[in-house]
């Protein structure tokens, strides 16, 4: 899941300062699940903006819509009937959603209301942690199901650096050393020998270094 957090309210207020008619768009996928941009957050943000404007003695008209998925043009199309009636769009989806809207509606400015953070998993209610960097060449099969790319602060392969201390990362004692976790997991699995196998230098091109990624499924496209 893609995780996000709401931007500081002042930043959002600055974006929309010149406008009086806003379309506030939520997304019923990842940002709903991570409680950043679902129907409830849309309602809360709209109320906060209303309060701010009333306090300033200004009027603002906010229409709230939550799409099933903002990163699909078909769903974004549902905004078409309203787009001409508004001065700006504020999206509470991840960056993909914001750009899908921007691509569809050329004349209306669109502003993000959340900061997209990472691909992560739920640890417990209200807590999410980064688990994947999208490197394009998954090594989890070798590293016991624990990702050194996402979870080692230095994205190291072939064991920990000298900064590991009591099994924690030198960046912060709250971060587990990924390689300590990998070692413990391999031991539990009786696959310690894997640790001896050297991994070659990683090709970072599929992970972004080769330019924006694209997937084309010939059979579907």
């Amino acid at each position, binding site marked *: 899941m893609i995780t996000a957090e709401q931007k500081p309210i002042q930043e959002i207020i600055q974006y929309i300062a010149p406008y009086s008619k806003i379309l506030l768009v939520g997304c019923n996928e990842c940002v709903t699940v991570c409680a950043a941009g*679902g129907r*409830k957050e849309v309602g809360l943000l709209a109320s906060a903006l209303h309060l701010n404007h009333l306090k300033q003695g200004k009027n603002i008209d906010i229409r709230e819509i939550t799409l099933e998925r903002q990163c699909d043009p078909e769903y974004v199309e549902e905004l078409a009937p309203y787009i001409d009636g508004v001065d700006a769009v504020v999206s509470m989806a991840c960056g993909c959603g914001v750009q899908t809207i921007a691509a569809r509606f050329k004349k209306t400015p669109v502003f993000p209301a959340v900061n997209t953070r990472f691909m992560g998993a739920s640890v417990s209610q209200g807590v999410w942690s980064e688990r994947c960097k999208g490197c394009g060449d998954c090594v989890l099969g070798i590293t016991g199901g624990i990702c050194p790319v996402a979870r080692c602060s230095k994205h190291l392969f072939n064991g920990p650096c000298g900064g590991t201390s009591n099994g924690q990362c030198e960046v912060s004692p709250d971060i587990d050393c990924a390689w300590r976790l990998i070692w413990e997991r391999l031991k539990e699995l009786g696959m310690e020998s894997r640790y001896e196998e050297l991994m070659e230098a990683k090709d970072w091109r599929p992970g972004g270094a080769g330019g924006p990624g694209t997937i084309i499924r010939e059979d579907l496209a």
Partner: protein
Amino acid sequence: MQMNQNSENILSKDRRVLVIGGGVGGIRAALDLAESRRNVLLIDKSYAIGGLMTQLDRTFPTNNCDLCTVSPHLSQGGREKYLEIKPMTCLTGLTGEAGAFSATLMTEPRYIDTEKCTACGECAKQFPDAVRFTPGLDPRAPTCMRYPQATPFAFSIDMSKITDVEALKKVCKAGAILPEDQPKKTVMDVASVVLSMGADLFDPNVLDNFGGGRFDNVVTGLEYERIMSASGPFQGNLVRKSDGKRPKKVAWIQCVGSRGINRADVPYCSSVCCMYALKEAMVTKERFGEDIETTIFFMDMRTHGKGYEEYYNRARDEYNVRMVRSRPHTILEKPDTKNLSIAYAVEDKSVQQNEEFDMVVLSTGFRVNSETKALAQNLGIQLNEHDFAESDHFNPVLTSRPGVYVCGVYESPKDIPETMVQASAAAAMAATNLPVSSAGLNGEDMFPPERDITGEDPRIGVFVCDCGFEIGGVLNVANVLDAVKTRPDVVVAEPVGYGCSSESMAKIEVMITKHKLNRVVIGGCSPRTHETKFQDLLRRVGLNRYLVEMVNLRDQNTWTHMNEPEKAQEKAVKLLQVGIAGVRTNHPLREHTLPMNQNALVVGGGVTGMTAALKLADQGIKTYIVERAPSLGGLARSLRKTIEGDDVAPFVQNLVDAVTAHSNIQVLTRSVIVDHSGMPGLFKTGIQTGVRMNYMQIDHGVTILATGALANRPPQYGLGTIDNVMTQLDMDSLLADEPEKVQAMDQIVMIQCVGSREEGNPNCSRICCQAAVKNALKIKAISPDTEVFILYRDMRTYGFLEDYYRKARDLGVKFIRFSLENRPRVRQDDGELVVGTHDYVLDSDIDIAADCVVLSTGLVADDENTEDLALMFHLPRTEDHYFLEDHVKLRPVDMAQRGFFLAGTAHSPKVIRECITQAQAAAGRAQTMLAKKEINLGACVAVVDEKKCASCLICVRVCPFDVPFINADGVSQIDADKCHGCGVCAGECPAKAIQLLAYEDDQILAKLDGLFER
């Protein structure tokens, strides 16, 4: 004495139980019976039910106001459909036998039609001729209503004080005055009778030494309550009658008229006066000033109830209530100041002292009045030597006449919680003589089908109560109505006086029908007490019960803003706008029910558990007894004789035999509870049972906790190390098995409060004083020359146990007081057992040679066991590890967790007969719950909009009851029959896919809009 009563149950159809006396005990008994679907008639000689408790200011040990806790019970009393109330009515004859009595009742004229009376108070205003009204200080009118929440909610007239009847009739706009009202005689079939007449309080004016009735500033305990009470004669200001000034020094004198041998005294102890004196002293300091000096003159401080000892300690140590151990002789009044001089002597000083007080409170106790004595004659029941009802030794709610049961103070002096316990027990016994009423098993059957209102535009009726002066005294109801009647969709807006009176309710029904209303707003009091009443009203006219909205104009407006009528007026309009806007969005809701499991689980197989199980099983309820020991019987197995002289062993054996033979009881010994789940009415409890510890699961609707307590054996005074130091239980056995050993003893010393009333176990064990007296009497009976010394701190032989205490003194048992700072010492001198103690009267240390030392060790809670069960069942405990009931005063056998009931020594230490009573009470309360047959889950449940659900799992994670789950369609599902309606999921759902019915977003937003509407 054992009464031969429960031999057979004679069932009679369409009969009822007659409950005599509408105090808290009678009300509890009547409500229990009504809740278990038995028809009940509650009669009271007074014009309103409520009894003594409604006159109290606050109650111990919580120091809460009484009316707030008792009045919901009273209004509930007016609501039950199986319950009829006849005030101003007495029983004049009872013929026939249990199950088929014929009762003759005489109802005095009230001169007011209770159906028409709206309790507006006009008659009281016009005819305020002062009459004295017991208890003494309240100047009352001839048309008199005792307190604002009276049931029935109507006045009554003393016609002998009215000269101009026509003028009186004119005053009443409701036309409720009935000048020609006559006494009415009714004869009716009755299956059983519950006596709950209580007793009067002793009138100290007959004593010549305390100045009662002669000195202005000498009052009784009850008069003091009235002075402190907000509904009392001085509007809740503590002032002296002589000069209207606040007293600085108040004294209480205990045992006035009780525990005495003088003329006008009674020998027994009234049980409640120590606690009420402590309470009054504490409340005095709490509410009227830290600086008021309070002094209590007492003989023995009898704080033997649950948690009461800590209350006593708090009064003494935190509130600095001064305790003087003395029974004062005389009170003299100073003619100039009207102050009072008390003459008294204390044990360690040889001269009499005099001390001056501003006010003296006489702690008077209970007396059976002459009317009650006459009634007993009509009933043909035996009385004891003190004119209270003679009751069975093992089953105190049985009188000498089968089918007639007794509870409360009329059985023996007792406080409110014990009265409540006995009332529920008496109700449970009375219920065995008649079947469950077949009328209206399903409450909904009484109502017409619901009208379908879909597609109708809202048509709102707004009805505003004035509630006498409560609302009408602050608001101008007509102006409020003018302000809201122009709101959209409001079709009618009318004043309704007392909206909850039957006449007003009828008027509202007519208007709903006439104007085709489909939404109703009631501007009145709290939905907490009155919502059901108005919901039922809507059902009667064929509307769904969720189409009414209550606006609390009283508690939340006129009461709080009494001195700002203009602002209150403005707020009333706003609150009504909120109600109108809200009700517009209301829609019909369906209530969800589940069938209730009809089995019972009884945890603990002692006397308490077995008694409760038998009571339930006799009513056809499948009952499981889970006992961890290898056999039934519990602590009573180690008890030989009761203080009344009855043998315990055969009684216990009979119980065990009856339980074992009963087809509805399954006994599981050597069994422990290992898991528990479910909800009230549908529990599942896992046990491991037998020597092999096999796992077994029990489905049950109710649970009774009867896990008992442990006999304490603290290593004090040489117990366990010095020969011939034993406990009272050991002595009890010795007396039964080897009396010759006791006969050979010259001197026996008993020590009280061993391991009780001290650090580690601060409360009183209640049973030890009577145990010591019991054994002392037995020793004296078989060996009159044996000297018995009882070293005590306070002798707590409450109620009629005082008779045994007095007898022990008469027989020469020597009682020597000791204090915690100066404890007795047990030692061995050359193999001789010697007890050293301080004698306060001689003011010197003395040594007593003893052939044996008997320690009164009492009971302690089974900490480990109650802790395990408390965790498993989610139940609260007291600081000293007993289970904690829901309300120490009014719900002493119900636990806070619905479906759990508590009895016996798991609640607090008590003697065997008290355990039996509480067991019956718990069984009775459990039956009232099972009688409902279904669990009403209400309509307020969470519903999921599948289209909006993002399957995020947040509802699954936050639900405290683990109800939501992601179903096969990949969306959250919340089953209505499992949902508790707490609303946590609805608040958390990030997709706004969950709504809590009756608290939906649009309803709340509409109410907010209403609030800010201009």
